[in-house]
């Protein structure tokens, strides 16, 4: 498979337009977000300098669980940059640390060591409350099991991120209705999750992840619970509606049938990044054929 792929560092592949995104957070001006090295790095990893073309920059990320003899090292020093305007696939065998890495990137877990610069903000410097607010405004999630609230309709489910941001309910549901129409579920807005197929539920989850216009979209095995055809459709839809110049989409997946949709493929193994491959149109076409 490697023969079809062209190895290239993704940091070289960002368009200028990504510079124009709105990454203002918590009332700070853009100049406030210019994080400069202060010479007080807690470990030997290089100090991060904000790079506005990168949505995610990880340096020396390590993560271990447990203590003493029971300690398990899950991430063993991850250096990674993910650009705006792309769909990056995070692949690798089970237990290699994909979920842990995506959890750290999304601010759901703290690394044991290392620094992470997410959308121009140093996650290490944010308090838990700030991280929570940051997630609510800047990150969209698509989960493997959809995690839709069973008693809410499709539109109400899709409106949840806006409700978390205290947008009035009527307004939030109206906006959710619009985004549902974009994912082809305009006629299902009043359906309960139990009345929808797996593929439709995942599309509702995609609408929910996009409704608040996040700058980072994190998808965890979005096709794992779907059959091949539905999974492919969902991913094609995701690529069509989610990928924008001012947004970064990271998809954790095992599903080789959707590899051709990725712009970048990040392969992990045993807690490290094994390789990062830039997929050009030729290799994407080859992948699709495979």
């Amino acid at each position, binding site marked *: 498979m490697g023969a079809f792929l062209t190895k290239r560092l993704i940091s070289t592949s960002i368009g200028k337009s990504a510079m124009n995104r709105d990454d203002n957070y918590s009332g700070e001006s853009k100049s406030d977000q210019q994080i400069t090295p202060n010479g007080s790095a807690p470990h030997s990893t290089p100090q991060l300098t904000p790079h506005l073309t990168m949505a995610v920059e990880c340096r020396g990320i390590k993560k271990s669980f447990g203590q003493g003899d029971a300690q398990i090292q899950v991430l063993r020093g991850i250096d990674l940059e993910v650009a705006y305007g792309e769909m990056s696939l995070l692949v690798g065998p089970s237990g290699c640390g994909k979920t842990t890495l995506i959890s750290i990137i999304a601010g*759901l877990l703290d690394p044991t060591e290392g620094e992470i610069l997410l959308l121009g903000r140093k996650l290490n410097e944010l308090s838990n409350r700030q991280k929570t607010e940051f997630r609510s405004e800047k990150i969209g*999630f698509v*989960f*493997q*099991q959809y995690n839709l609230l*069973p*008693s809410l309709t499709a539109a109400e489910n899709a409106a949840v991120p806006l*409700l*978390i941001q205290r947008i009035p309910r009527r307004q939030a549901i109206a906006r959710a209705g619009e985004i549902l129409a974009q994912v082809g579920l305009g006629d299902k807005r009043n359906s309960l999750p139990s009345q929808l197929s797996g593929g439709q539920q995942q599309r509702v989850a995609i609408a929910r992840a996009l409704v608040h216009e996040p700058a980072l979209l994190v998808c965890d095995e979005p096709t794992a619970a779907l059959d091949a055809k539905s999974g492919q459709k969902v991913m094609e839809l995701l690529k069509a509606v989610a990928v924008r110049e001012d947004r970064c989409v990271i998809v954790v997946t095992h599903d080789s049938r959707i590899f051709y949709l990725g712009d970048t493929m990040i392969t992990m193994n045993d807690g490290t990044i094994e390789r990062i491959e830039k997929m050009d149109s030729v290799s994407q076409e080859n992948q699709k054929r495979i």
Partner: protein
Amino acid sequence: MIWIAWKMLTGDKSKYIGIVFGVAFASLLISHQISIFVGIMTRSNHLLHNIREPDIWVMDPNVRYVDEVIGLSEDALYQVRGVEGVRWAVRFERATVRTRLAEGNHPKARGDFRQVILLGLDDTTLIGAPRKMLIGSMADLKQPDAVIIDQAGYEFLWPKQPLRIGQILEMNDHRAVLVGVCDSGQPFQSQPIFFTLYSRSIDFSPPERRMLSYVLVGANEGEDQKKLARRIAQKTHLQALTVEEFKWKTIRFYLATTGIPINFGITITLGVIVGIAIAGQTFYLFTLENLRQFGALKAMGLSNSRVVGMILVQGTIVGIVGYGIGIGLAAAFFEGTQNQIHLKGFAMLPEIMIGTGVVVVVIVLLASLLSIRKVLVLEPAVVFR
């Protein structure tokens, strides 16, 4: 997010009903049983509730509760009247006598015997007389052999018969004539209560050397009743208690010497435990089943304080609905039995409603705390596992 909390709660109908049922059951059991308990305690004090004129009751020093009658010498009356601060003092007899009915409580039965309470009122003042007559007049007590019966007693002795007077009874081989039926509070054991004159009650009661049960005392205007009671006790070497003191002495006696508080205490405790067990466990299970959803909400940026708020809202909703149903059912019981003469004196007091509400708050808080703890320690990253 309150709206989402409400939708999450009511979306799972079976769990929602289960939690509400738990709270409702606890509310019903607690409020109903406490009301019955208070009613029984009130009935143990029926004499003190029915006879409201005296400020102080004077009795033998060994009397422990209001229905325990130990005869006093007639001299006691005059001794009490001689104490400074006493405005008036009158005789009062309370006896348990066996009555023979000329007409039995069964159409074909004649000559039935029934145990009844006989109250002998001061011949001159009629202090202690019932306030409300349903048929006849208190003045008729002046007629020969006249007695008046309470309504519940009438229905006990002559069930399903319309109220009428003129029936002949036999008390201690003496003829008695029913001249009236009154409305009166029920005694502890639901026995019929007969009112008659003190002088006549002595004849109707089995003979004893001392027949005077109580000396009823009215205090002078502005007199400190407790001090007067102490003064009477000191001067007469008898037991003198204010109405309130006598009520609590009686209640303490029943609490200490009967199984009533233990039985009701167990039932009420069961109500609380069952409430916590059913409502708490179901609520906890409900939270556990929604743990991934809570995790997803936390991942999407919902703060812990708002998650706690959601759970408290859910707890408050089931608390209010469950409490409303439980208290409503208990109130419906007492409302429905209001006209049941034999259940007279049983009612739900506002204090009991408030107390039950406090217990429900505790149940809901305990149930919520378990769920809150679970959700607070939940890592939002769990949604990726």
